[in-house]
């Protein structure tokens, strides 16, 4: 089913939910103000459902908006978005019956930066979809690329393109990709410690502490983040590499077993920092140690919230080996 048909389906479902009074508003995407952008939007009137769009640039994880809302919300959710909804429900942050999930099977979202690389210097005026291809209009001509070649990094290793849970499913399911074996994590882990230190200190040296990674993350919802604490102050406020690394490492540890690999942090980062590498490592460890990948099952207990006598104990007996 084409994205245009999906868009029609999303509009119909949103209008119906609003008209029937099942939700107060639907969180979806509208046309962005720039080429290759779709913008999160809230539609509260059935007639407004025509604003909703569905295309290769609907990359934001909209589950970010569900927590703490004083309205009953419907939400347009891709596979990864539903994974975070699953975790938010498990963590009692979202009540299952307070949200209507409009599930949308997803073929992966396109990374505007990769499209710009393909188009070369000059301005991209529009990108149209044609089957599995994207047609870029730039510099007075057009270039056709396959969607698969320009996916966001998180989409290229996605293990769940179809919604894990939904109240309304739009369109037909898409085939899942072959399993992800964390090859990128293995590659990085195989480098010696000096190399890795150099890689991460170099990446972190660009951090400006804007906290966009934290703000975009659906699972980063602490009422008070540890970096904002002043008594005691756990992490210095400046941009020294030690403080920056402390923030990012503690964030990763806090997301262990909870990160759904949606890539929202990495896409939001204005400084193009390799944030996914750290989160992916924690995801790989949690899968290896506990056989758990966040958000894939509404019923499986969260590994760091549940005790199982069979849980690995090596970390206590042989620190550093776990």
């Amino acid at each position, binding site marked *: 089913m084409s994205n245009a048909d999906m868009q029609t389906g999303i509009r119909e479902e949103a209008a119906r939910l609003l008209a029937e009074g099942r939700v107060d508003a639907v969180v979806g995407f509208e046309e962005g103000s720039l080429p290759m952008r779709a913008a999160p939007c809230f539609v509260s009137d059935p007639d407004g459902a025509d604003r909703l769009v569905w295309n290769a640039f609907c990359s934001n994880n909209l589950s970010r908006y569900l927590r703490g809302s004083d309205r009953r919300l419907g939400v347009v959710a891709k596979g990864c978005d539903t994974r975070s909804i699953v975790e938010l429900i498990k963590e009692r942050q979202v009540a299952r019956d307070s949200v209507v999930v409009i599930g949308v099977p997803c073929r992966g979202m396109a990374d505007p930066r990769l499209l710009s690389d393909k188009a070369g210097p000059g*301005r991209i005026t529009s990108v149209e979809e044609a089957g599995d291809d994207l047609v870029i209009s730039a510099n007075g001509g057009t270039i056709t690329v396959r969607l698969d070649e320009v996916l966001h990094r998180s989409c290229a290793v996605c293990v769940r393109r179809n919604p894990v849970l939904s109240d309304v499913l739009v369109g037909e399911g898409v085939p899942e990709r072959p399993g992800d074996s964390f090859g990128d994590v293995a590659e990085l882990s195989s480098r010696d410690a000096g190399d890795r230190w150099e890689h991460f200190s170099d990446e972190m040296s660009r951090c400006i*502490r804007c906290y966009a990674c934290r703000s975009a993350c659906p699972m980063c919802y602490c009422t008070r983040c540890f970096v904002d604490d002043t008594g005691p102050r756990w992490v210095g*406020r400046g941009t020294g590499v030690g403080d920056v690394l402390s923030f990012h490492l503690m964030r990763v540890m806090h997301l262990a077993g909870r990160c759904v690999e949606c890539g929202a942090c990495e896409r939001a980062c*204005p400084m*193009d920092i390799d944030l996914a590498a750290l989160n992916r490592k924690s995801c790989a460890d949690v899968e290896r140690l506990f056989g758990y990948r966040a958000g894939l099952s509404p019923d499986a207990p969260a590994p760091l919230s549940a005790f199982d006598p069979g849980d690995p104990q090596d970390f206590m007996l042989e620190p550093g080996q776990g």
Partner: protein
Amino acid sequence: MNAIPGRQVPRLLDALLGGHVVFAPVRHGRIVAFEPIASGSDAVLGCSNSTVSPRHVLLPRMETLLTSCSGDAYARECTCPDSPVVLFGSRPCDARALTLLDRILSGGANRDVYYQRRRDLLTIVSIGCARPLETCFCTAMGGGPFSTDGSDILLEECEGSFLVHVVTERGRALASKLGVCDAGRRPGGATAAAEEETGHPAAPTGIDPGMLKGSLDASFDDPVWRAISERCIGCGICSYVCPSCHCFDIVDEEAGGSACRKRVWDSCQFASFTEQASGFNPRPTGASRYRQRIMHKFSYCIDDYGMAGCVGCGRCVTECPVNLDIREVLKAFAARGAL
């Protein structure tokens, strides 16, 4: 010589490096940022607006104001270099933003000694924008792709060379050191013909600053702020990439066994920005914080400093992770009139 051939720019920067710290655009993968360069060839000049603005040249992301000495005595420490600094390759919008920072931090009664010390050492060589981006709206904010506001020298690309426009005495001193002189032409003239053909993307976007201020002043309590800011996720990108934003926090930290007082960037978009020791927060919602950002830039700055706190560089438009486009917000308010 009143024009510098493009291929000679690295050599010219090398000559400057003899007696100056030179900040120029440097590329790290997809990011372009202003950094002190070690060699003239490190500078990338063909790029459009840098990812983050060069305001850290005058307001570093982190600077130590004081460190403790023995006992109760404090020593002042300013980490800025003693040698003269050249900011090379800034765009006219960025240079114009520094004129706002000057009004706030270097004019009037509240002169900031740390800022002033850096400012006194700085010469700004900007490059006019022959190819503004689609996100640029400098003209609507009272500047322009060839505005000389804030620049000491403005360079203009013309057939593979850079025409020299000397703007200030400080610029004249630097130009004479480099053996170049003013082209004696109107800045932007060499680009005007091309401009007419293609239409100017930095043209006004339907925002009348006077109308806008009246409309904003009448809208402080309007519930529309909630709808406008609903998609905002409350990160600090817009403030941190901005050339005009200048809010900071002061923190006491420990380093190497001594106490130090640091100034670090802060953002009005963070809830902690206005949180008081009692726990009370006068701006408790995202809507109140987003309103503050817009009101500060387009109303309070005009009242207090006579110019808007925005120069239309478009970085917040490009970088906002949820595409909350400030131009759309301003257009909507400008269209409402003064109510």
